[in-house]
């Protein structure tokens, strides 16, 4: 039982590290702010959550130490990191950062034009 949980914890930590590397490559290679933010906020969030879950399982099963702060950190990152991504993207949009030139759809622009016309 303990050996299986050790393997699961190791796999979770490796998976989280892999997802963090994916997020880094996304930030480097993607063309504009919004796609970069998409890569960074999603992939890094799941990566960090996996690493924390692996750590929690390891200390719980191996050392019998139930660390509730790690659970709290997982919930907290899950709640706040997408909001941070949302706020960064919206601040970029409102300050006029252009979309990638091959983008085909900008729904928020249409909404803003309708709102301007109603005023």
């Amino acid at each position, binding site marked *: 039982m303990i050996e299986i949980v050790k393997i699961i914890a190791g796999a979770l930590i490796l998976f989280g590290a892999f997802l963090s590397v994916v997020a880094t490559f996304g930030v480097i290679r993607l063309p504009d702010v919004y796609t970069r933010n998409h890569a960074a906020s999603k992939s890094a969030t799941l990566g960090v959550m996996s690493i924390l879950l692996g750590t929690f399982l390891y200390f719980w099963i191996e050392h019998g130490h139930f660390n509730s*702060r790690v659970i*709290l950190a997982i919930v*907290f990152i899950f*709640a*706040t990191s997408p*909001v941070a991504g*949302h*706020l960064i993207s*919206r601040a970029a949009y*409102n300050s006029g950062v252009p979309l990638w030139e091959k983008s085909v759809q900008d729904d928020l622009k249409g909404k*803003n034009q309708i709102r301007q016309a109603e005023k």
Partner: protein
Amino acid sequence: MKTNDLILQTVTKVCAFVIILFSISIFLGGHYSPGGGFVGGLMTSCAIVLLLLAYDLKTVAALLPIDYKIMIACGLLISASTVAGSWLFHAPLMTHAYSYFNLPILGKTSLHTAVLFDLGVYLVVIGVTMTIIQTIGESE
């Protein structure tokens, strides 16, 4: 253009309570684990700063009607009176004492007067941080 802060405000409503609870946990656990009055106070003021970011100064002032300068004075008074309390028992200055008590729900608990000193530090840190931030925020 007036922006809509609904997502930030909703998340802040939940997260501020979690941050304050965690800071209290850090503050109370400071004797046995990393933490204490300074980090706890900084984290509580972080929660209030998060409220200030999501709402505005007037809303937060209505929510928490605290004069932070008085809070600094209270913290200094508590710390100084725990230090001065050692005079009452003819002990050297800043001597702290502890003992074990049987509390109603918690059972056998060790209570230490250093917690009161730490409470003073906690209040002073919150007061100083919030005074600095509110003073900077109000000057246009």
